[in-house]
């Protein structure tokens, strides 16, 4: 209900809209924008300091505007490699997570079976356990079994922590489905397989897509579990953490800005298409 509507409703209910509430609303709105500004403040700093004409390695004080760093984006080959590693890991982890999570979501949303409660419990535990503990226990597993940590173990870990989110997102979508559409398809002679691909899957697709986006975002941002399972492989967040002591070069700001821009574009596109769909 909008502000205007509620004011109308209030008047209809008898009393005039009280000015005190109006003021309270306005204060609350100002507060909301203040918090949003606070959330974006460090991001603004990140973006702006990618254009900083800094001479020293510590990029903390404003020295004037330059586009120099954008042309010298590849000056730190290890940073570039780390960013590409992050992207590779996120893509691979997203594909695996989306397939496994969708299957789980279908099972949980559609079927009743023995062990359903246990599955829910484990999914819940995967969300609720601190990342630190997940990373530490995975490292214990890899040390004990003699597995070398690296690219593969990072992907394994990323699939692990995003699986629950995809499964739950898909499950919610599956539960909300109108089953009569599927029954109609079957009545018209479609096989189980055809019904799934031509009817069910298109209907759960929005849930699958938002689960995949979530998995990708979780993976590319992850630091803690990655630090425990990466061995010598560097990802973008790991490289930044390692560089903190010596000063962060402006190239990091630019890489961060580019990832942010792509993420914002995808999120906005997704929310616009979601709105059109409904």
């Amino acid at each position: 209900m909008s502000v205007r509507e509620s004011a109308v409703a209030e008047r209809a209910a008898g009393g005039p809209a009280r000015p005190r509430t109006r003021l309270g609303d306005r204060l609350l709105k100002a507060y909301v924008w203040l918090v949003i500004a606070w959330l974006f403040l460090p991001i603004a700093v990140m973006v702006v300091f990618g254009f900083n004409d800094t001479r020293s390695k510590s990029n903390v004080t404003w020295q004037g505007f330059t586009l120099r760093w954008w042309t010298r984006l590849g000056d730190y080959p290890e940073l570039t490699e780390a960013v590409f590693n992050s992207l590779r890991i996120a893509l691979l982890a997203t594909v695996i997570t989306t397939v496994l999570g969708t299957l789980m979501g279908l099972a949980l949303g559609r079927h009743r079976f023995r062990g359903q409660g246990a599955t829910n419990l484990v999914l819940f535990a995967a969300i609720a356990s601190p990342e630190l503990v997940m990373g530490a226990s995975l490292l214990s597993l890899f040390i004990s079994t003699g597995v070398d940590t690296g690219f593969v173990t990072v992907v394994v870990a990323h699939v692990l922590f995003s699986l629950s989110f995809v499964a739950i997102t898909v499950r919610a979508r599956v539960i909300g489905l109108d089953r009569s559409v599927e029954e109609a398809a079957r009545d018209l002679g479609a096989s189980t397989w055809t019904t799934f691909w031509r009817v069910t899957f298109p209907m759960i697709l929005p849930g699958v897509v938002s689960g995949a986006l979530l998995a990708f975002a979780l993976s590319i941002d992850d630091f803690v579990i990655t630090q425990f399972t990466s061995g010598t492989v560097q990802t973008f967040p790991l490289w930044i953490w390692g560089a903190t002591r010596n000063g962060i070069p402006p190239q990091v700001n630019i890489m961060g800005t580019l990832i942010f821009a792509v993420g914002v574009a995808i999120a906005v596109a997704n929310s616009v298409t979601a709105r059109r769909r409904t």
Partner: protein
Amino acid sequence: MKRLTPYLLILPGGMWLLIFLVVPMVFMASVSTQEGDIVNGFVQTFNVSVYGEALAQYRTQFLRSVGYGLVATVVSVAMAYPMAYWIAFRGGARKSTYLLLVLLPFFVSFVLRTISWKFLLADDGLLLSPLKSTGLLPDDFHILQTTTAVIGGLVYNYLPFMILPIYVALERVDPRVIEAAQDLYASKREAFAKIVLPLSLPGVFAGVLMTFVPMTADYVNAGILGGPANTMIGNIIQIEYLTNQDYPVASALSFTLMAAMLIGIFAYARALGTENVLEAAAR
């Protein structure tokens, strides 16, 4: 075949969770009762005295982490509730835009955002140096390496996880219920205290769950924004695992942390219903 379908669907993901979530916990318990060092190797001796020793040695950091987690959680609830309330009841057609704004910062790696705060809050940084040069703050004033900086960083990084579940709960409150209360002569305050607040509590509980545990186990904020006096248990576990490679002590500490958190979580979730918390967590 039909009866097997759900099991076949669950199998791949379920195996993944079993092998990489459940089994590692067993290995972690096993490593914590080994003795030895990284050069000569570790031997399983089922020696549990390491728990007592490690806890005695790092009691301060343990208690500090729980303390920081509690304070940061309370601050987050206080900050998130009014915000979620305004978006849910006054956001109008722009509700989803506001939510998107709350979520967009996640597209910047949280390590990078925390480092940005370090620059912003530095003694000669963007925020403090103008205040100091105009005399509003004394020259020796600093925020970095204080408890305030660490708790501020924790709240900053986890606030959206508090806002979302509270918003979801408030969004579900039917406005007609509030109108009904007002028709029955409840004041605005009474309607809030007796209708809106109780209905939104599951969201608050879910938010607390989503933030308290990761904040307590966090080491990035203490590592970047804090000083030696702000070391949390996460920093200790990270150093013991990755730098000192003293795996028995490290796994004993993280096993204790996990046990403490899980007992708390399951007691909490049992009281509130796992399904509800899960649903709220997924949004």
